[in-house]
């Protein structure tokens, strides 16, 4: 079984800075990590490989530094990786990113499953996984929480939806995005780390994959960022401390007043 896992390198979310002029993220000086939600996709792939054998390839689009994310994926248990990197890819929105990744995946040859994280923690769009599926013209299960079976060229999965779960069956090759519930990601092993250290990850640019220049980067992106701003948090911020019975009653009074005033009860 050949499994492809598209991953993204993202900044540690706790200290993100924006350039107010360009509306883009300041990446310098911010620690970069594998998108935490992609770890569940990698783990899912590793478990499928453990069960059925095969090969896992991590693929990413990003700057040269994203090689680190791919190496980390290898350290966790992916067999190989490829980085799609080209100055012309810069500024791609979700349409153009899905396009580049889908074409990178096509170049990898035959595959059975493409497994993505639910969304990246920086962009929060959750659009690239379904976008890749659409470009590849493949069936798709989003918000996948369990793989029920893989046999006879079909995969049966459970997906988390409003109010419960849905079970669907897809013919292979298929794509899916997974949620945290599907697995607990393992830590990189020592052997994996050694392998990651030595591995040569190929870097493919525009000329290596069959993409049209007018479809990538800012130029190929249908959306434009008009502006970026910081949300105003206008909270009254009243705070009271419970110390004894009297303040306890006072606190409950306050909550009651709040609920009544705002018509929650």
């Amino acid at each position: 079984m050949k499994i492809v896992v598209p991953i993204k390198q993202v900044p540690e979310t706790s200290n993100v800075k924006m350039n107010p002029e360009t509306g883009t993220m300041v990446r310098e000086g911010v620690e970069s990590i594998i998108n935490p939600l992609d770890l569940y996709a990698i783990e899912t792939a590793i478990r499928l490989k453990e069960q059925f054998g095969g090969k896992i390839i991590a693929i990413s689009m990003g700057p040269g530094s994203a090689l680190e994310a791919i190496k980390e994926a290898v350290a966790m248990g992916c067999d190989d990786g490829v980085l799609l990197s080209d100055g012309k890819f810069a500024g791609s929105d979700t349409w153009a990113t899905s396009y580049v990744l889908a074409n990178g995946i096509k170049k990898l040859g035959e595959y059975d499953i493409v497994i993505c994280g639910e969304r990246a923690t920086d962009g929060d769009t959750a659009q690239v996984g379904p976008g890749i599926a659409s470009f590849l013209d493949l069936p798709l299960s989003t918000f996948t929480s369990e793989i029920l079976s893989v046999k006879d060229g079909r995969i049966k999965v459970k997906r988390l939806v409003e109010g419960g779960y849905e079970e669907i069956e897809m013919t292979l090759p298929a794509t899916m995005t997974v949620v945290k519930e599907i697995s607990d990601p393992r830590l990189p092993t020592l052997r994996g780390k050694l392998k990651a250290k030595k591995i040569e990850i190929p870097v493919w640019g525009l000329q290596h994959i069959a993409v049209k220049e007018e479809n990538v980067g800012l130029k190929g992106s249908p959306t434009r960022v008009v502006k970026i701003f910081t949300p105003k948090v206008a909270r009254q911020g009243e705070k009271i401390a419970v110390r004894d019975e009297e303040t306890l009653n006072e606190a409950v009074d306050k909550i009651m007043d709040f609920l009544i005033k705002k018509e929650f009860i």
Partner: protein
Amino acid sequence: MGEVWTLAEYRFGKLSSVSFELLNRGKSLAQKLNAPLASIILGFAIKDEDINELIARGADKVYVVDDKNLENFLVESYAKVLIELVNEYKPDILLAAATTTGRTLMPYVAVRIRTGLTADCTVLDVEDETGNLLQTRPAIGGNILATIKTPNTRPQMATVRPHSMKPALPEKGRSGEVIRKKYDDSTFKTKSKYLRFIKDESQQVTVQDAKIIVAGGKGVGKAENFAIIDKLAELLGGAVGASRDVVDRGWKSYPHQIGLSGKTVSPALYIAAGISGAVQHIAGMQTSENIIAINKDPDAQIFHLADLGIVGDLNEILPILIDRIYDYKKREASANV
């Protein structure tokens, strides 16, 4: 000027209320653009009263595709039908709810028709000079807001966060046009098959759909204590939320998890009990309209977000609060007899 379209959600023979929220969004845009407002409804055995409901709540037109193959959501068949409709009628704007359905279908469709899609918007407006749709959305865990437009391609597509707007109310005497479309079997050919839905009984009210969420964190203390959170949520008609700690400890199941690796929510009221407010949790709830925080630690981060903060033990406070709400409701009920 092309039409403004909103995608109604029809599940288990019922329109979901996000369909009406979208109509409210669509209405103000259609007014500004002086364009007709239409709803799309895809499903099976769609009732006339539901179609009329969309008209009463603001749709000038309703496009209906009623087919056995659309009884349950599969992205491949839904996408094919929606693409057919878009190619035939060429709307200017296409809005869907940022539900599991909308967030799956819309990117699949946007890729095929080569247009822009903006995810999980909380504010929509029209750019004065150009008439372009201005789509504002939180990103990076709600730390920033970005306004995005699709200047050169149509339709301009967006998914809209549930509960970021009130549902449009029905008006008596409104009339509208109903356009029924049929497609042949090749449209419904898919490489996937829907098997079944399994209801999660612990999600009486799901966190994505809830107006009120009562969420518990590590401060709840132990699994048994969570009953108090469940009880308060039930009394308020809300959903039960949980922090990552709570889910990792197995006190609550994953569908309840709020935050970076769980759900992002914007209810009208979020009560955070025993939640310290780690960045990852805050990312999932900071756009809530009202926030009440209860925590023993006076320095807990959650208090920075709270409209009302109570420094104290939730296990002491909530039982009294529950009694008081119960009494209040009883009094109100008898006063209204």
